[in-house]
């Protein structure tokens, strides 16, 4: 009998490496599934760059209790872009001011290059003031014309200027950003949580009339208190949802964290 046979006779077969490979594979699968369920490799929801909705100008409200200007959509703040200042016309060349500084006793014969030969400093100042007044009047006229045009556009489209019935080019005309602002405001009133890093991702569907038709929690960190706070914030905010642009049903995703609300 050879030595190897003798050793085999003594040594009974033990669990080979194959069985241990199966065990190891099972161990790894359990680890990865546990990690997935515990969100060790949690991927944060991709959020769109935050658009901050700022009410630049609030038009005068006829009745403060109503909360919105007449003709505007209920609860929708109106945004009006402040007209850019018109560049001031240059009234005179720098050398025109020299006689004013150097006062009357100076010889005036050398001074007025453009105003005619017989213009005195007093006449020159009067002409300058007239020029300034006319420039200011032109600037005010232009600003008023722009405001009138915007109001006319608003009335023609039957919606408030800017949000949410705007054309999409004005500042703050992003409907989702508007909803985000409303949700953020409401969320600041209801926020509460107990988990370390709570997170709730929701999807809202708004019909053509601005009514919330669907509210779905797509992802949650499991904090019931935080979920309840989000739910109450949505219930508060939905009162201020205006009809979407175009009157079409829209669906948006939002991510709630203690730090705030983000669009998805």
């Amino acid at each position, binding site marked *: 009998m050879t030595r190897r046979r*003798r050793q085999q006779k*003594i040594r009974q077969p033990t669990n080979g490496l194959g069985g241990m490979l199966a065990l190891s594979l099972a161990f790894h699968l359990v680890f990865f599934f546990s990690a997935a369920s515990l969100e060790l490799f949690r991927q944060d929801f991709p959020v769109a760059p935050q658009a901050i909705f700022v009410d630049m100008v609030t038009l005068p409200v006829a009745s403060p209790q109503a909360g919105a200007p007449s003709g505007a959509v209920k609860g929708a703040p109106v945004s009006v872009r402040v007209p850019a200042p018109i560049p001031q016309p240059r009234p005179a060349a720098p050398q025109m001011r020299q006689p004013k500084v150097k006062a009357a006793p100076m010889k005036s014969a050398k001074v007025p290059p453009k105003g005619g030969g017989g213009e005195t400093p007093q006449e020159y100042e009067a002409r300058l003031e007239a020029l300034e007044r006319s420039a200011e009047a032109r600037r005010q006229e232009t600003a008023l014309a722009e405001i009138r045009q915007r109001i006319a556009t608003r009335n023609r489209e039957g919606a408030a200027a800017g949000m949410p019935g705007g054309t999409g080019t004005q500042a703050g005309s992003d409907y989702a950003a508007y909803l985000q602002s409303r949700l953020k405001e409401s969320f600041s009133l209801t926020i509460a949580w107990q988990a370390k890093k709570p997170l709730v991702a929701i999807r809202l569907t708004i019909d053509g009339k601005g009514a919330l038709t669907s509210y779905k929690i797509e992802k949650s960190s499991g904090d019931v208190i935080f979920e309840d706070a989000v739910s109450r914030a949505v219930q508060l905010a939905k009162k201020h949802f205006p009809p979407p642009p175009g009157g079409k049903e829209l669906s948006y995703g939002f991510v709630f964290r203690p730090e705030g609300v983000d669009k998805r």
Partner: protein
Amino acid sequence: MVFFAGTGLVVKLVLILLIYFSVVSWAIIFYKLLQVYRANKESERFLEFFWKSKRFDTISSQLDRFPNSPLSIMFNEGYTELKKLMETGGEQQIDDPSVISTEGGGIDNISRALRRATTSEITRLEKYTTFLATTGSTAPFIGLFGTVWGIMTAFKGIGESGSASLAVVAPGIAEALIATAIGLVAAIPAVMGYNHFQNKIRVVIAQMDNFSTEFLNIVQRSFGRK
């Protein structure tokens, strides 16, 4: 598995390789834990039985009770060689057939048989541990390679997109760093396991050396010619 899906081909291959290393390393760790535990446990029992027994043939008949003990294997080898010497002693056996000559190389034969058994058992115990050492030393570098490749790809993408904001840069780098993390996850248990088993195997080798010396002493005392 979102992190896995978002990586490039090279990083995916690196991750697959590292996961393979990790799975095999853990299989070896489990296998060796069981093997070394059984070897130690049965060696203790065998030694106890060996010192209580008076006769080698009684011990030899009970070796099936200690299948995983390296000492029982050594005893079997030594006893088989001893029996051969006693059976084929021929001219060397002068008066008593139970006496073997120490001059004709009888004890040396038994010593060589024991040394051979020791070497065989050490080889068996150390089998696969080299894979642990390889994993421990190479897995972090493989992971680092995946990370470097991933960051290179991420920067290339950033260059093409023309934006260098944190939102653009961070996800690519985070995905690339996963390779290093998995490399370390594979390497750390492998290094710990390798060191643990080396220490345990060293103890078993010392036990075998001691047993070999004791066995030769007993043979010399009981069967050696004066």
